[in-house]
């Protein structure tokens, strides 16, 4: 296979040292440290009213916030790990528990309201907030995954999108009533799904292993 030999000689002829990426967990934490403030800054474009944590039902909001941050960190770690060839998704079960726990905490908060359904058509502010906060996080996530490229870009970007959605939802809980109506909660979920879709759509070209 002479032509393979020629290619190998070419590739190894002027080899430069390379730097290995940091462990997936460290990269995920670094992303969180950069992405959350960036997302918060992006929402300056919207009017914000800080959460009154003394209201009834705040315990569910605090639990939801903690779980959304855990899910964001776990999902980004999965995104970073799965982008590297031959690596599985670490602690996928814990990630699922955190995500479902977040949903459960929010549903419990909703059920504690006297009128849990809320007004149809409400929740657009929350939707806009999640998408707006997610915008800079998407750019940072794509840049982070591009460092290693991804063997299966859709899968890695979907995990990254999930991390961004949970990150944006954790920011939203700082300027939102401690409990939300069902319609409002559905708009939160819709905002998260939009962010996941945008991340996959915008990032595929940039992180695919060309």
């Amino acid at each position, binding site marked *: *296979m002479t032509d*393979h030999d020629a290619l190998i000689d070419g*590739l190894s002829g002027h080899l430069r040292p390379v730097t290995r990426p940091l462990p997936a967990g460290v990269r995920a934490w670094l992303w969180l440290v950069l992405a959350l403030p960036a997302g918060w800054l992006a929402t300056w474009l919207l009017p914000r009213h800080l959460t009154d944590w003394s209201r009834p039902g705040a315990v569910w909001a605090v639990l939801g916030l903690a779980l959304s941050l855990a899910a964001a960190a776990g999902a980004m770690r999965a995104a970073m790990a799965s982008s590297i060839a031959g690596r599985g998704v670490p602690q996928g079960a814990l990630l699922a528990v955190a995500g479902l726990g977040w949903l459960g905490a929010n549903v419990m908060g909703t059920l504690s309201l006297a009128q849990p359904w809320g007004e149809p058509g409400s929740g657009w502010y929350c939707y806009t907030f999640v998408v707006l906060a997610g915008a800079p996080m998407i750019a940072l996530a794509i840049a982070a995954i591009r460092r290693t490229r991804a*063997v299966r870009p859709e899968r890695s970007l979907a995990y990254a999108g999930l991390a961004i959605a949970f990150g944006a939802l954790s920011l939203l809980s700082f300027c939102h009533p401690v409990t939300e109506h069902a319609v409002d909660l559905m708009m939160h979920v819709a905002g998260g799904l939009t962010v996941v879709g945008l991340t996959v759509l915008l990032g595929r070209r940039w992180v695919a292993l060309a």
Partner: protein
Amino acid sequence: MPQTGSTLAPDAPDHWPALMARAQAGDGEAYNRVLRQMVPAIRAMARRRLRDEALVEDIVQDVLLTVHRVRHTYDPARPIMPWLSALTAARSVDATRRRGRHMAREVYEEEHMLAWADAGATERMEGFAARHEVERMLGALPARQREVVELVRLREMSLADTAAATRLSVPAIKALLHRALARLRQNGGEGHD
């Protein structure tokens, strides 16, 4: 000076992580050795997915280029075969999809052509056919080979400029071009039998 394949143990995957670690530090000789030793393993993995020998060799070359591109992502503390196997699988799937798309695009409907025949269309059709033929043949090449042929032969860029544009070395460009032209000749020959 790189060693030749004949002086190396052909199946020494236990040594590959150490060689890759040296390659990541910039040791070209270690890199040359490990890539040569990987070729039979990559070929065997590709053959498990595809029967087309020419395509298998293209995949081997594509995997070597991919290994080069993402060599920093390999962690020498981990086994190397899952990493290499995942890269080979990804490249095999890409090649299969590319071939499938290429074959799906080839449509020939004789009845419609006769029913809507245009007496003055011969010249235009010949021009179109020539362009289509070039596109068809280039479309059958792996992405890297196609890119190199387009840059060197169609845009008439120099090897050095092509190397700079693609971030590969000049010998790598030559090897890609050689393989691409060989494959084009093979496809062209098949098409005119």
